[in-house]
Each structure stands twice: as C-alpha cells, then as structure tokens.
C-alpha cells in the first residue's frame, strides 16, 4: 500500500471540496446571513489545512494500483462527508452530529433522504450547500480533480473506476484528464440549461440553481417540504422530470452525439431499455392509480414524474405515493433496484447490470432445456466477457447480503419490517424516499443515531458501488 500517494490524492480532493465551500459563503453574504462566516469558514479552514498538509510534496513513488485507488476514493468520500456535515452543526440548524452527517452523506451520495422535518426553516446558505453536495457527488469529486489536474499520472484509471458507476468503466478519449473534462463539460452544460429552463417557467434564480444542482446529481434535496409539488406547475415538473431522466443516461452517449457518431449512440442497448422501462412502468402505474386523480392528464403527470424520480434515483416528489395502491408502491420499490444507466449520475443497481443478470438467467435456462445449447450473453451486439458476468453476479450477491445485514441493524429501531427495509433500500440505491412513514411526505428523522450511521454506510456503499468502501476496512498485511 502506497499510503503517501493515498493521502496525496485525498489532499487534492479535500482542496477542491474546500474551495467549493466558498460558494455557500457567497450565497450567505447575498442574503445577509452573518453566521456563514463561522459555519462555513471553520470547515473551509480545516479542509484546506488538511488538503495542503497532505499535498505539500508530491510523493516520489506514485505507483497506484487498484487497491490504492479504491482506498483513496473511499477514504476521501468518508472524510469529506465528515467535514461537510460541520456547517449544519456549527450554524445550529441541525442539532446533533449524526443527523448532520446523515444529511451530508445523503447529499454527496445523491440520495436525497433527509432527516429534517422542516426544511423551509433552514438558512439559504445551508440549503444551497445541501443541494450543491448533490452536484459535486453526482459526477464525483475525484473526477473533478482529474479534470483540473495538470500532471500526467498514467494510473488514474484505478481511481476513476472506484468512483464511476457501472459494471465497466472506460475512457472517452485516450487521456483520462480530457475524458474527465468532457464529462464535466457535458454535466455543467446540462445543469445550466436546466436552470435556465426552470427560470423561464417562473422559478426564482436561487430556487432554479438549487433545484438544478439537486437534479443534476439525481439527488432529490429540495428547499420545500413538499418538494417540486410546491410550485404546482406542470411546466416545472416536466422540465425537472425530463432532466433527471437525461442525467440518468450514460454520459458517453452525449459524447457520441457531440462527435456526431449517431450510430454508436443508437446502438446503446442499455439506454433504449432504460427508456422502455420508464414508459412501461408509467403506463402500468397510471392504469393502477387512475382512480386517485382526475382525468388522464393529471394521472400521467404524477405517475410519469414519480417513475422518473424513482428510476433515476432522484427522489423528488409531486404527490405522496404512500396513498397509492400497494401494487404501484411495490413496482416503485423494484424500480429503485433497477436504477439508471451505467456512467450516469444516477444510483441503483444500474440498468446494464440488471440486463446482464436477466440475459444470464435466460442463457442458463437454455442450458437446462437443452444441455448441448451454446449461448453467449451479449450487450450492444458484442459478447460480454465472462469476468464481467461474474462481477455482476458477485455484485448482486454482496449487495443483497449487505442489505440484509443493514435491515437487521435498522430494525433495532422498532419500526415495521417494511418500513425498515424500505429505508435501507432507498439508502443503498441512493433514492431518497421509501414507504410508509419514510414515504415522500415523511422523513427519516425518527431514526436513532446508530441507524443513521448504518444508513450513512449504506448510502456510501451504494454510491461507490460497494468495493471501495469494503476495501477501506479489509485488514491487510502489506
């Protein structure tokens, strides 16, 4: 283990996080909130102090292998969550540290689950920071560091893989630095265009920024207790729904569109399936819930928004799904597992993993019906490597095992089995709302500190796709 290099990478990441803490300070000054100097200034100084002390000298031995990549990414995410929680505590807007930590982890991992019962009482700077953690966590801080770093470190792939979502991670162009720049370029463009479109719909500038940051990371923090429903505007709902769906698409696709390789973009089976699932589930749920709303238009409006919000793992809401029939609620729970596309900012298991699993299942069935059958699992018309198939199955197994353990630990709270399970599912898939008391209208504030910490882990597990975080705690001899 190259600890010097790990701390160097951590330092670089913390410096970036620290610099971004200046943004809420600016917001605070604009709205005349004096407390920001202390509440964001102190964490800013702490982050910068750690960041600079870790990066004083560049380590001579800059060999980074997958182990170092995993550990440095996981350690950075844990550290930045711990520091990012400080503003809430110092400003006194969230009283206890575990709650603040939960809120921050939920932000960085783009979960959007909140423990706050009254969001609207928060100061504007804190609300901005909450939404901004979504934006930063959505594409990843390390990715940002890679994009601005000038050095030519060749082994950055190991780190990129730890932060990027999906069963396979590749580069867009041959230099990972430029790949990261392209991704962030697309990300920023989409975020800005959403903000502009929201403002055209009559949303104030501040609200537009908060909501577009929050939907860019497919997070789900809103500044209102009833989320997007607050505006009661079909236009705003449709803009948000469209953009979260767009943020849930594999970003490589946008690059292919940019360089006019339309055939490559169209070939992407995952994205086509993703849209198919969204349309199919909207129709099914609409049929199931149509009695609750007046007319086809209203039904489709709410079902489409909620399906988009669930599958992309955003977790915004316009209506309380707890009132929906059990069938629809269960379907939403299943969509949580599906999640968005690999290489997007969304959470969940990722559509491509589910597709590989289903295709492997069909292949196995073929073997059983005809032992002489020869079949390969294919994606985009290309055979999927055995290792990838194995990796996906292992991921599913680990995911389920960790989920069961977490459910067990959360039930210590004494809530019902379905509520506890839904809390864990929503956290591990980075969604933001569950069922029952944790539904869109409720919040997770009722949990005790221990459960909050467990769920913090679950959210990080979900965002970093399990392995990096486990690596952090694996005892090692070398």
């Amino acid at each position, binding site marked *: 283990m190259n600890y010097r290099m790990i701390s160097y990478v951590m330092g670089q990441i913390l410096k970036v996080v620290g610099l971004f803490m200046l943004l809420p300070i600016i917001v605070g000054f604009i709205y005349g909130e004096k407390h920001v100097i202390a509440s964001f200034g102190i964490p800013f100084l702490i982050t910068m102090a750690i960041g600079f002390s870790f990066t004083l000298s560049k380590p001579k031995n800059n060999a980074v292998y997958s182990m170092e990549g995993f550990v440095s990414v996981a350690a950075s995410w844990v550290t930045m969550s711990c520091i990012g929680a400080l503003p809430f505590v110092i400003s006194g807007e969230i009283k206890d540290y575990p709650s603040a930590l939960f809120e921050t982890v939920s932000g960085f991992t783009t979960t959007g689950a909140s423990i706050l019962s009254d969001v609207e009482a928060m100061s504007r700077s804190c609300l901005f920071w909450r939404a901004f953690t979504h934006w930063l966590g959505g594409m990843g801080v390390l990715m940002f560091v890679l994009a601005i770093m000038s050095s030519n470190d*060749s*082994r950055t*792939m*190991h780190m990129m893989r730890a932060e990027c979502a999906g069963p396979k991670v590749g580069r867009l*162009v*041959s230099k990972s630095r430029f790949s990261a720049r392209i991704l962030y370029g697309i990300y920023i463009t989409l975020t800005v265009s959403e903000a502009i479109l929201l403002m055209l719909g009559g949303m104030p500038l501040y609200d537009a920024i908060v909501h577009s940051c929050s939907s860019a990371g497919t997070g789900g923090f809103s500044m209102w207790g009833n989320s997007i429903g607050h505006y009661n505007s079909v236009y705003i709902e449709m803009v948000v729904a469209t953009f979260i769906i767009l943020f849930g698409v594999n970003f490589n696709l946008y690059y292919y569109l940019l360089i006019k390789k339309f055939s*490559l973009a169209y070939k992407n089976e995952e994205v086509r399936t993703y849209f198919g699932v969204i349309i199919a589930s909207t129709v099914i749920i609409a049929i199931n819930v149509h009695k609750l709303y007046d007319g086809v238009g209203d039904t489709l409006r709410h079902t489409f928004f909620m399906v988009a919000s669930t599958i992309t793992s955003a977790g915004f809401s316009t209506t309380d799904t707890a009132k929906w029939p059990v069938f629809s609620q269960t379907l939403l729970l299943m969509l949580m597992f599906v999640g968005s596309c690999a290489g997007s900012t969304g959470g969940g298991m990722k559509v491509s993993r589910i597709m590989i699993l289903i295709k492997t299942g069909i292949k196995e069935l073929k073997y059983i019906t005809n032992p002489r059958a020869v079949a390969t699992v294919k994606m985009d018309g290309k055979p999927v490597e055995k290792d990838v198939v194995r990796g996906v199955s292992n991921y599913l197994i680990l995911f389920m095992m960790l989920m069961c353990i977490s459910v067990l630990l959360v039930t210590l709270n004494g809530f019902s089995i379905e509520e506890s399970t839904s809390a864990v599912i929503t956290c591990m898939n980075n969604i933001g709302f569950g069922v029952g008391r944790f539904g869109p209208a409720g919040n997770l504030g009722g949990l005790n500190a221990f459960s909050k910490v467990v769920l913090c882990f679950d959210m990080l597990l979900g965002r970093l796709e399990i392995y990096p975080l486990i690596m952090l705690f694996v005892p090692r001899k070398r």
Partner: protein
Amino acid sequence: MDIIIVGCGKVGSSLAEVLSSEHNITIVDKKEALVEAASNDFDVMGIVGNCLQTEILEEANVSKANIMIAVTASDEVNILTCLIAKKMGVRHCIARVRSPEFDKQLVFMREELGISMMVNPDYNAANEIAKVLRYPEAINIESFAKGRVDLAEIRITSGSILDGVSLSQLSRRLRLDVLICAVQRGEELTIPNGNFVLRAGDKIHMTASHSNMVKFFKSISAAYREKRVKRAVLIGGGRVAYHLAQQLIEMGVKVKIIEIDRDRCLELSDRLNKVDISCADGTDHDILEEERVYDADAVVTLTGIDEENILLSLLAKNNGVEKVVTKVNRMSLMQLSDTLDLDSIISPKTITVNQILQYVRAKQNSLGNNVTTLYRLVNDRLEAIEFVVRDKKDYVEVPLKKLKLRSGILIASIVRGNDLIIPKGDDCLMLNDSVVVVTTTKGMHDLSNIFD
C-alpha cells in the same frame, strides 16, 4: 499526436507506456485482459476487437490519427491492418514484419503499398549483435546524425590504457577527438567533468565521429592482444541466428550454429552457405565441450528461453570465452546485466521499441518539435537526444563557455554540414546544426530546455 497501437504484447504495451506521456494513444487488441491491463497502467484508451475490422478501426478514430503502429504477432495481420488503415485515412503506418520471406520485398511494400516503415526485430537484433562483435570492447553502439556520430558504451577492463586516465588528458593521450559523456560506476551514473579519473570496472558512454571511433577501438585494442572475433558460436538457430550468421560471414567470421530441432537445422543449411550447423542440445555441457564452444572467440546465446540464454552465457563466460552476447525477450531482465557480469544483453523488443520511438519523434519533429533522434541508455536512466537548431534563439552563435547549461546535461557533439565538432568552450551553435545532448533528466523537448 494521435497514435493507434495495434497489438498489445510486450512491444505494444511498452510503446504505449513511453508514448502516452506526450501523445494521445489508443490501443487495439483482441484480448480483453491485455487491453484492460494496459489501460489501467497507462493513460491510454483501449479498444477490444479485431484490428482488421473497419468498424473497430473507426472506433479508434483512424481517419484522424497521425500514426498507426501494427505490432501484432502475425506479419500478415500487421501488413493488412496497415493497408486498411491507410485507405481509411491514417497518415503514417508502421508494421512489424519478421519473417525472412518478406526480406526482399520490403522496398516494394514501402513504396507500392505505402507502409511508411517496416520493423524487423530479429534483423535489428542481429545487426546490433554484429556491431558488438565487430568491436569486442564495446557493449553497445548507437549512431546519430545519419551515421556521422557514434555513441558507444564501453567497459574499462583492468590493464586497459584508459585505466587511471583523467578525462582532460584523454584526448592528448589517444591523439583522438573523443568525448566521454557519462560514466557508470557501480550503481552511480555521473556526467563527468575534466578532473574525473577513469577506473577499471567503469562503464563509459562516449561519442566520436565514426572514423575516430574505429581508430579509438584500434588503439585501445592494440594495447593488449589482437582481439578480433574470428570464430563465433551461435546457440539456438532462430530467426536472429539466421540474420546474424549472414552478417558474420560477410565480416569473415567463422560461424557455427547449434540447434536442437533437426528440421530447423535443415532449413538453415538450405538457406545459409559456409556455416557449420550442428543438430544438438546446446544446453548440454558435454556437447558444448565436444563442439569446442569454449574455444570460440565469441558465443551468442539465442535460444527462445531467457533463463537458458542467461545460464549458458554465464557458463561460457566461466569457461573463458572472451565475448558473450545474450538475447533476452523480457525487458525487465536487462537490468540483471550488471549483477550477472554479462556485458552484452540484447533484447530485440527493446530495439524495436527504440526504433519505432525514433520514427515517431522524427514525425513529431516535422510538427515543430526539434528532437530528431533519441536513445535511452542504462535502463532508461540516460537519454541521448539529437536536436536540430531551427530558429535563431539567444543561445545561437554564442560561445558555449558563456552559456550556462543546466546540471546533468552535456553537449556531446555538434554536426555542421559534414563536419563533426566535439565541442569546446569556444565553439558555438549555429543555425541548422545537429546537436547531440546527453542528459539524465527526462522529457527534454527543445534545445532551449538545456540552458538555465
């Protein structure tokens, strides 16, 4: 530049490693594991697939690429890939072609098929070994400025006239213009000044004009007995042995090849004249005794197995063979040369990589970079770079003693027209000069980098 490397074996991946720091590299290979390893370790984009598919080449953006390097295991695939890529719009392509059958049509392929460069690692390795055998004192010789300047690596043995000579006296003592650029003593590598005293056991890197280099070797060899290689034994009869035998015969050296495979022996005897060929196990000590291998002036171990080559060379050295040359495939084994006291270890793959790098740098040169030739020596710790003075900068036409060089840098020679100048303090750089610089710092792209 955008460079596509097809084939991700040892040569492909080490090219990717070296080139990725300056260029945009895309590698293509059929084997997923190889592509994955390369894109993990180096900053390159990997594509898995058959390089003969236009679809795959398109994915690698071949129409925009400056250079395509085809180094898959098969000659035919390399040539075909180059042809397809050329049609799809790549500007230059390099193919590795090793089979001796294609030897005679290299010119045809270059001129009619438009393949910019053919690399034959076996032929180059044979060339290199022949050079080493021609100058028995030398470990390695490279040339610059179209052959006008030689850079030689020499080991100073005890009893040599160079032992105990300080560098300032050297030229006077030999009455020759030579320059010692770098001295390797044990693990330490120094760029010496005039007060440095040479000792036995040092490895020196020196530059001189080609004719002076020949004279230099004559004068140091004359100091002890006549040492020209008259009899050489090649153990292992692969492609390198074939090319080497041909060259050695031309030099008037008696050659014996020991090869275990009878069919291969017959094939060699069909193609080669005046060569003794024995079909025997060259790793058997008794056979080596019987074949009088230890009486030869030079033994070259060319079997396909690195370990066997190294052990055989040690054995030959132990039994008093003057000059032993070892071929290894794994580049990492090159670093063993000092510990094992084997002077000449030749790796065809390293030679191939160096040759392709030279070509890439020359192309880069036409895009505004001033490096024409580059050699990496002493396990990549030392670089010898040839620059061309293109623009009139402030260091041009100023006596060298007035310029401040950065530490660890030496101007080894200046080529002006047809003349070679071993630079002294009063010499200055002129426009269009070729300048060879030796340095321990990496990443020199421009002549202005060498001055403070």
